[in-house]
């Protein structure tokens, strides 16, 4: 007989992590479903940076200069996809005013994706002839070559507005200050908290952290996105609640006495650790029940000798496994 939960990740309180992940997943999926069914009362608060987008495009139109968009330099992942999706909305507005658009990519895969999405936007607007090879372009996938290329473009084309949304690293400030030098309006947002302060210092409007993900829900009001956002909020409130309860529980527990301390996956008697000077001490954070929820206690006797397996006659190779 085997136990279904006899897995390394389920031992002791290990299941809590899996459970928490599943709870978050469930709350997101549940709310997406709820929104799809047409729950009308789903509210999203105003996100300041996004209202500036139309002003920025308007200004570019007046000045007859292009709008620059950079989806960060990350590889093709949800962040880049999210950025390109926001840019699709921006392109839609820009296309209506016939304002030229430059979307510069630092990853070939992101380029392939953006090419597809942005071309669709122009096709929808019936403006296929305005979709040029320069509209979406791959500049370089080396970080600073990309920065040099885009800076040169900002200067030469004198862009009127820049949208820097996505995964940015050190090059963030190069783009932001260069755009500032040519007097462009800038809306920026990065999931990298390390770059956000530079955007705050150099740009006109900044999406902070999570606002970046909330942005497309706010702009499109697509039920899937709105529902997902609500689900995320539920998860956040849940986590905040857990932290509050945990803080109180931990605090209360730490006023109690104990005669053994937990050190990693062993329990050490106080008398031993103090050299016999004391037999009881106040509980430390690691000794509490709250800690155990987050750090499963798996002493050796739980694993050792309980799981003996036969050895392979000839050890199999490292790259065993398949597609």
């Amino acid at each position, binding site marked *: 007989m085997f136990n279904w939960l006899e897995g390394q990740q389920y031992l002791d309180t290990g299941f809590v992590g899996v459970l928490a992940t599943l709870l978050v997943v469930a709350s997101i999926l549940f709310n997406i479903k709820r929104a799809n069914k047409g729950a009308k009362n789903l509210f999203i608060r105003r996100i300041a940076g996004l209202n500036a987008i139309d002003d920025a495009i308007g200004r570019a139109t007046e000045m007859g200069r292009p709008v620059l968009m950079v989806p960060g330099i990350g590889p093709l992942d949800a962040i880049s996809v999210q950025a390109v999706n926001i840019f699709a909305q921006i392109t839609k507005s820009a296309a209506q005013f016939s304002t030229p658009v430059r979307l510069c990519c630092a990853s070939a895969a992101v380029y392939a994706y953006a090419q597809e999405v942005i071309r669709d936007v122009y096709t929808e607007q019936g403006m296929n002839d305005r979709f040029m090879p320069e509209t979406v372009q791959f500049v370089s996938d080396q970080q*600073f070559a990309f920065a040099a290329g885009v800076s040169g473009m900002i200067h030469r084309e004198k862009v009127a507005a820049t949208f820097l949304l996505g995964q940015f690293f050190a090059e963030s400030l190069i783009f932001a200050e260069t755009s500032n030098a040519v007097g462009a309006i800038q809306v920026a947002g990065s999931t990298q908290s*390390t770059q956000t302060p530079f955007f705050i210092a150099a740009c006109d409007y900044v999406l902070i952290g999570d606002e970046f993900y909330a942005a497309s829900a706010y702009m499109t009001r697509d039920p899937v996105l709105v529902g997902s956002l609500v689900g995320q909020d539920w998860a956040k409130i849940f986590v905040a609640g857990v932290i509050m309860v945990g803080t109180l529980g931990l605090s209360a527990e730490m006023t109690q006495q104990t005669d053994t301390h937990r050190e990693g996956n062993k329990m050490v008697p106080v008398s031993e650790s103090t050299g016999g000077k004391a037999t009881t001490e106040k509980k430390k954070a690691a000794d509490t029940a709250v800690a155990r929820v987050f750090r499963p206690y798996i002493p050796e006797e739980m694993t050792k000798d309980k799981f003996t397996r036969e050895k392979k006659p000839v050890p199999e*190779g*490292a*790259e*065993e496994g398949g597609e």
Partner: protein
Amino acid sequence: MTIWEKMQKIDRRILYGILVVCVCIGLFFPSTIRTDPDPSSKSFYAAVQKLPKGSTIIVQTDWTNSTRGESLGHFENLMRLLMNGEHKFVFYSAADPAAPQVARTVLARIVAERKSQGLREYKVGEDYVDLGFFPNAEATNTSMGANLKAAWAGRKSKTPSGTEIDIFKTPVLANVNRIEDCQMMIVITASQSIDIAVQRLAQKIDITALVTGVVGPTVLPFYQSDQIKGVAVGLKGVYDIEYLMEYGIDDVKIEGQPYATAGKEGPVPKTEIGTRFSRGRQYYGTLHVALTLLILAVVMGNVAMFAARRRKGEKV
């Protein structure tokens, strides 16, 4: 335009010019500065120094010449520390294909430096192993945690005699089957690769890190939650480690005061042999000049703003 208004709108090019001049001058006057190392730097130094002699260390070196200013100093210090402790190490990169070559060059220089100082010469395949580059940090670290032998399978190492053998046959890794068999993993990085390592490996092995100033703030939460055991951040971190190598924690004293006071890890002796102060010392003084310039610029802008408003009779 009054002088105050002008001071609020100094052309950026003038600021740039001043910075270039100040930095160039600063470089010609390296100096030893009394300081108190950051607690996280002390933890790093203590963690490495407290390793038993001859430990096996995994070094993930994820920096290239573009962050030479900080990471080069970190890497040089680390090599000196590891060689002082006679630890064996493997190094590889999971972030940048160019990183192993950069590390190799520096390592060769440190080995030559120690040879010229009459210290034991570290040899490839015997004291350290060069694994090269692993693309995709996530997958690499995940499989290192799950199955170290599979993750590193097929990699060869040169030996002092010039032949090639499987890395697991070298003295460095002969007794290593799982990642838990190594004593520490040290990540030198200029990117988020430390996050990836912590997420996937912190439960299996003690991790410490040497990171750039940018990455520092995102790594400190891991230090606070004890997911990493110590971290030296940026140029200050480079100088901190050199300073600790020279003076130890609560070891060398001046007028009864230790150069570096003990933190939670207690006293740790200074290093006895090899180079201690080097690049950190050369650059740290210049950093003071540049920072002072920045702070002056900010202060000046604000003073001018207040003065200009006052002249106009606005409330401030």
